[in-house]
């Protein structure tokens, strides 16, 4: 049924090894570059609409293209709790705690990205809602 020649097998091995190596590198990078104090930047159509302090447990609501997007912060982790979209990919993604791992809600044009507060231009305690 499944006929693979030597070259096919080499290609498959190359893809599997490179994906595992890339994943390990990315994971090590995001762990190493996440500081103790972080903020989550929420953008709508490339415009920043909210800056969330990750040290405070709370729920926030932003307006996306298809409706409201509910964002929850708990124990320095963030997730999209509820949104209106065809397949709910961004709420299925679940909790994110490391800097630079994007939560992308494409149908709503919402992107959430955790950043270290040292990078934040408005200082570490700024929260805009």
């Amino acid at each position, binding site marked *: 049924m499944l*006929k693979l020649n030597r070259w*096919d097998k080499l290609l498959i091995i190359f*893809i599997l090894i490179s994906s595992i190596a890339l994943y390990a590198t990315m994971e090590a990078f995001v762990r190493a570059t996440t500081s103790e104090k972080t903020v989550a930047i929420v953008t709508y159509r490339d415009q920043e609409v909210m800056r969330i302090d990750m040290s405070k447990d709370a729920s926030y609501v932003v307006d996306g293209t298809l409706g409201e997007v509910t964002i929850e912060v708990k124990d320095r982790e963030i997730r999209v709790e509820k949104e209106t979209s065809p397949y709910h990919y961004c709420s299925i993604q679940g909790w994110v705690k490391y800097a630079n791992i994007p939560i*992308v809600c*494409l149908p709503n044009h919402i992107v959430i990205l955790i950043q270290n507060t040292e990078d934040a231009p408005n200082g570490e305690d700024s929260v805009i809602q």
Partner: protein
Amino acid sequence: MRKLSPTRRLTLITMLLAMSILLHMIEPSLPIAIPGVKLGLANILGLVALYLFGVKEMLILNFMRVIIASLLRGIIFGTGFWLSLAGVTLSSIVAIILYKKSPFSITGISVGSSAFHGLGQILALMFINQTVMMIYWLPLLWFSAVPTGLITGTLCVQVLKRIRK
């Protein structure tokens, strides 16, 4: 396959295009456990066109499929359209290179083109969202390209076997 008359050839290409549009449109509703990962069933028809007719026909079929399916779904020139276009562009280029210049089988070509479809989508996302960190999702798409490519490649072999009879 024996030589086809221009009318039969046009009819067959049109039928492949119609089937690929249908698969493109129903595929997002198929339940797959990993968010963002799709089987790429429409790619089967692209590969069938490549092996039955050639490079030009595959490119026409793939690009027409993305444009018409996006028009029908009302997402033309939206983010989803650009992701599909970037994915299909890169996967078609890789499929053509592997088809012309390598000893890979259809299944191998399917796996390669699936992997580069994911890369094309990530590059488009990086450009649209202006953040290089979208590459974080590449290993997931790259890894899942192996089982999805094997499934679509195997199906493509079976489809070609039956069409050529």
